[in-house]
């Protein structure tokens, strides 16, 4: 792909939604009010695992101010399936059962009933008066418990997909087995001069978005439903609510509010079906907002894992064999990112012989949801720790070892297809040259590096570009903005049409007002929705060419477009070029308004690679570690708005650092979550972190007209390994269990 010079792409305008956000005017889910609105609250199971014997709502219904009470009897069991982009056809049964338990509760916090009342206080007090009889069952709250012989079984009918049917067929908590192999690992390990093997554990963690889930649903007398919600995918909300509640989707409109963080955790529905069902029963609009405790207990954290990793190398550092067995917690229903972990764990390196076995295991914890590169951070933690150890034992520079084995274009990805142009070598070489790599370390400090990889989704998107008579424009898509994509879309339109970016209004439209869009996720919006935006802008350009042809009385084929103007091509009668503004002014007389549109469904984008360098200082008396310097280097394809790309890299690094150092779900032995608050679920704050330096490397993705690669998820993949490797460097001790919290570090250092 030839290097293209851009005029708008790569600049850093102030984001269009910025003013509303710095003045408090931006409307998030909880800020929506609708006339006549009442308030919903949810009654949740105190038990990790129990049969629902009976629910008596009489006392709740009798309370003044209570307008509706919802139980499983109000929502039919659904076997509906919807097609959702790359997740394929998904059954809504589990999502619906998760939203409101039917026969069993499968985690502490599992919703069992809901109340709508004239005030939130009344709704909560009424919910407390609902009498639920539970038959408490033994719980399997950890991987070890769920995998043990005679483990408590969450789903009697669950059988392991991917296992040979000749194996013993009985109740199990293993929902799926994934296997990938290449070459001959016995021979490969036989050729190795050094083999390192270890078992790694990562905790269940939460995406930690600051905005709790929130929505308002209004069910009209005619069966029309409007839902305002903070979500990463309002078309997904429409389809899910239709399927779960047995409604015709044609009667549902969903409006996406501003969203206060998602990171994958808002790609499912929790409150929306309940709010809609309550509204139907109460004949009033119903607002529902999760408390922070509910967010921790009853939304979708990501899997804790146990990963055994074994890698063999020759003396010169060439990796020859690798094998891994990976267990991922799915939470209450099948669906962990074990597949993602399996596909990513060896994605950065050429390994001729490998064996990967990954297991999706249900446990009595909240149903996991996606969290930024799902499956990959834990997998990379294991791989990068072992690679680091190999480098140490061989006396090799850790970046040299990685570079020696780094994949490049033409290599085969572990999951089969061949890589196109990719930037792993470039980012490693950039890291080697970076001043951070050479900087001296102080006392009690260590340095660690790690690589990371993530695919980028394609999926379906729609875009409309509207040209106004004054030469300004609007761009409309169906993808909620979690990364600054509205501003990026305005830059793309500006690039294509030459309209100044501050005369372009980008927006996210509701499900009535724009064509279908798959969820905002998978780092896909700049790539796939961006493609649709570019094509829609080009559609405007082509319509303007036609208008110029009309004005000049020539054929369309004789009209070109250069520098924001329609020009007569060679061979056509000479004409003064017509600017976009002039053509816009004449829209009415040359055929009417000009609206460009495009829809796309591209394949997965070129994947992204990153290297992170972490300097950690350890206080050996307290076990407390702090990151004192951090550099993130990533192949971003083409940075549409560099500040936003940097922001993704910094934010992902901070999340990864938190995951490595302090974040974890802490459970009591009875399966109750002990730290469901921001006080005890310890995410990084400003004083925990240094500045996070970012280096953007651009190896163009040939699948996209500007070379864009999705950038949002790769950043969280390297930090777990980088931090753990830094701690190894600082202490001489290899820590294989996260988080590297002070009690854990201190206990281990004291032991040694």
């Amino acid at each position, binding site marked *: 792909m030839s290097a293209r010079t851009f005029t708008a792409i790569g600049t850093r305008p102030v984001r269009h939604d910025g003013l509303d956000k710095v003045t408090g005017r931006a409307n998030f889910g909880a800020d929506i009010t609708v006339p006549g609105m009442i308030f919903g609250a949810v009654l949740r199971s105190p038990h990790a695992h129990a049969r629902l014997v009976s629910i008596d709502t009489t006392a709740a219904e009798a309370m003044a101010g209570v307008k509706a009470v919802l139980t499983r009897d109000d929502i039919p069991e659904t076997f509906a399936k919807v097609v959702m982009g790359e*997740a394929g056809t998904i059954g809504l049964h589990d999502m619906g059962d998760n939203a409101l338990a039917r026969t069993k509760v499968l985690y502490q916090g599992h919703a069992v009933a809901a109340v709508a009342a004239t005030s939130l206080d009344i709704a909560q007090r009424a919910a407390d008066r609902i009498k639920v009889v539970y038959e408490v069952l033994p719980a399997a709250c950890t991987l070890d418990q769920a995998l043990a012989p005679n483990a408590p079984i969450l789903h009697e009918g669950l059988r392991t997909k991917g296992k040979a049917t000749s194996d013993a067929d009985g109740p199990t908590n293993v929902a799926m087995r994934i296997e990938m*192999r290449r070459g001959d690992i016995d021979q490969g390990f036989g050729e190795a001069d050094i083999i390192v093997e270890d078992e790694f554990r990562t905790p269940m963690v939460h995406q930690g978005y600051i905005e709790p889930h929130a929505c308002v649903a209004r069910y009209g007398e005619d069966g029309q439903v409007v839902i305002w919600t903070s979500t990463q995918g309002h078309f997904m909300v429409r389809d899910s609510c239709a399927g779960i509640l047995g409604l015709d989707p044609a009667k549902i409109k969903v409006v996406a509010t501003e969203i206060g963080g998602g990171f994958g955790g808002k790609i499912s529905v929790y409150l929306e079906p309940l709010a809609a069902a309550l509204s139907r029963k109460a004949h009033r609009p119903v607002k529902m907002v999760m408390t922070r405790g509910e967010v921790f207990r009853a939304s979708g954290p990501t899997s804790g894992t146990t990963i055994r990793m074994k890698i063999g190398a020759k003396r010169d550092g060439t990796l020859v064999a690798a094998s891994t067995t990976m267990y991922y917690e799915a939470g209450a229903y099948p*669906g962990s990112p074990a*597949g*993602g972990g399996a596909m990513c764990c060896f994605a950065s390196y050429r390994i001729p012989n490998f064996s990967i076995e990954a297991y999706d295991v249900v446990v009595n914890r909240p149903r996991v949801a996606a969290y930024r*590169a799902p499956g990959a951070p834990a997998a990379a933690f294991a791989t990068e720790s072992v690679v680091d150890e190999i480098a140490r034992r061989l006396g090799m520079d850790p970046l040299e070892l990685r570079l020696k084995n780094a994949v490049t274009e033409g290599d085969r990805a572990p999951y089969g297809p061949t890589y196109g142009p990719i930037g792993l070598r470039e980012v490693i070489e950039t890291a080697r040259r970076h001043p951070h790599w050479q900087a001296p370390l102080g006392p009690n400090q260590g340095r660690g590096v790690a690589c990371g990889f993530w695919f980028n989704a*394609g999926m*379906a998107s729609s875009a409309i570009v509207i040209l106004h008579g004054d030469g300004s424009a609007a761009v409309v898509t169906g993808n909620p903005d979690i990364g600054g994509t509205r501003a990026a879309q305005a830059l793309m339109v500006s690039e294509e049409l030459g309209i100044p970016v501050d005369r372009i209004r980008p927006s996210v439209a509701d499900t009535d007002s724009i064509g279908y869009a*798959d969820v905002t996720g998978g780092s896909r919006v700049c790539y796939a929705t961006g493609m649709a935006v570019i094509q829609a802008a080009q559609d405007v350009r082509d319509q303007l060419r036609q208008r110029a042809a009309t004005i000049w009385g020539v054929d369309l084929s004789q009209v070109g477009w250069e520098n924001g103007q329609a020009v007569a091509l060679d061979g056509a009668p000479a004409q003064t070029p017509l600017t976009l503004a002039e053509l816009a002014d004449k829209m009415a007389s040359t055929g009417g308004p000009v609206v460009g549109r495009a829809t796309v469904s591209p394949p997965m984008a070129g994947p992204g690679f990153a290297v992170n360098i972490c300097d950690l200082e350890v206080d050996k008396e307290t076990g407390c570690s702090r990151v004192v310097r951090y550099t993130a280097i990533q192949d971003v394809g083409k940075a549409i708005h560099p500040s936003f790309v940097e922001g993704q890299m910094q934010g992902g690094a901070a999340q990864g650092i938190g995951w490595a150092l302090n974040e974890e779900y802490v459970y009591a032995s009875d399966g109750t979550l002990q730290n469901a608050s921001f006080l005890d679920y310890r995410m990084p704050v400003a004083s925990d972190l240094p500045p996070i330096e970012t280096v953007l490397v651009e190896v163009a993705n040939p*699948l996209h007209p500007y070379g864009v690669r999705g950038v949002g998820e790769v950043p969280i993949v390297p930090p777990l390994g980088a931090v753990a490797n830094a701690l190894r460097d600082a202490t001489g001790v290899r820590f294989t269990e996260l988080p590297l919290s002070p009690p854990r570090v201190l206990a281990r250092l004291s032991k040694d």
Partner: protein
Amino acid sequence: MAVVYFPSGMTRYTDGVDQLHIEAPRVRELLQEVLARYPDLAVMLESMTVAVDGQVYHHPDYVPLTSTSEVHLVPRIAGGSTALRS
């Protein structure tokens, strides 16, 4: 003839066969042929998608194939969306 590769975890459903040459104009016909030969694959195929010549497609049915196309069956990844498998 296009070649379709089965990952090792699926070869138990294909009598150990890990690659197959199939004449088919599009992915849809290719998968129909595969399922006709190995019906047990159906349950695993629900959680897989298809890469053609290096590009992973979310909706692969009508992707055209040439006489040299390489097709890989690939697990559907979460990629930021719910990792649900039905």
